């Protein structure tokens, strides 16, 4: 475990980088001209970034995570409510862990 000073330096470093990443997207875009093509690209980007994130987590996870996400997507398509999707995914994950134990 690091000493107190190194620990606080690390905490400030991590927090600073994270805050900068949250602020920088819109500030970078303010320097680029907005066009219909750019708007369309950003619209697609807002879907693809979440899809890529989910896919990346699933690829590193196992069948338990895949089964949970499948249940969540099914619940979302049928019931159209994110809260039921989360509940369905949680039940499958908890059930999987319970049965595997």
């Amino acid at each position, binding site marked *: 475990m690091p000493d107190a000073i190194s620990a606080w330096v690390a905490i400030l470093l991590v927090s600073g*980088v994270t805050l900068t990443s949250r602020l920088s997207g819109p500030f970078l875009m303010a320097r680029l001209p907005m066009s219909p093509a750019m708007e369309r690209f950003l619209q697609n980007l807002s879907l693809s970034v979440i*899809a890529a994130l989910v896919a990346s987590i699933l690829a590193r996870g196992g069948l338990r995570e895949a089964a949970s996400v499948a249940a969540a997507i099914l619940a979302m398509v049928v019931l159209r409510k994110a809260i039921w999707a989360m509940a369905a995914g949680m039940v499958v994950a908890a059930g999987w862990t319970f049965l595997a134990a």
Partner: protein
Amino acid sequence: MVRIAQSSPIILTAPGIRRGALLLAPVALFFIPFGLAFGVAASTKGMAATQSMVLSLLAFSGSVQFSTLDLWHATIAYGTLALVVTAVNARHVVMGAALSPWINRLPLRQRLPTLALLNDANFAACQTAFRSGERDMGLLLGSGLVLWAGWVLGAVAGAFAGTSIGDPVALGFDVVMLCFLAAMVAGQANRPLSLVPVLVGAAVAILTLPLLPQGWNVIVGAFAGGIAGSWFHA
């Protein structure tokens, strides 16, 4: 696609903040066990309770904080830590860019706190609303605030409780965020054309996972999906 009408003003109001908070309050409830899981993991790694609480308060990101724990050794490699955290955070830049047509029309003093609380969950939920004509950025700020509160509440409880609490993974809390994000994508990919960025983004992120440091594969996937979607549209 929805063109952003220049005539309708972008606003940030207290009722908007309240609606945002209510919209993601159910998700925020699930952030409590998440934050708790981090607090517990941090204390097993030897992070002091005050340190893990301040980190949760300031960083407010599960992926960033768990990556930090991986590098929490007696001697901290600051360069490696900065690189890893930058990679994990890179998707925030993409999300911010995607929100820029709306967010950049707010005054700076409203833009900064709204962006400071940007995260996967409120991005996924709010960008849908903005595309459907929502003009109140309070939705983003309010949902950010309620998620932050849940995360910090859990982190404080976890930092003090340490390992005395059971395993949050056994109860399925670890997949809740993943399922919420998958549900947001499923809720929006309702037209064949919107499947293009989703499928290309997912496929490229998986294919580049073994080739790139974790985090960058998400960015490459996001850009590939964005470009593919625009190309199919044209």
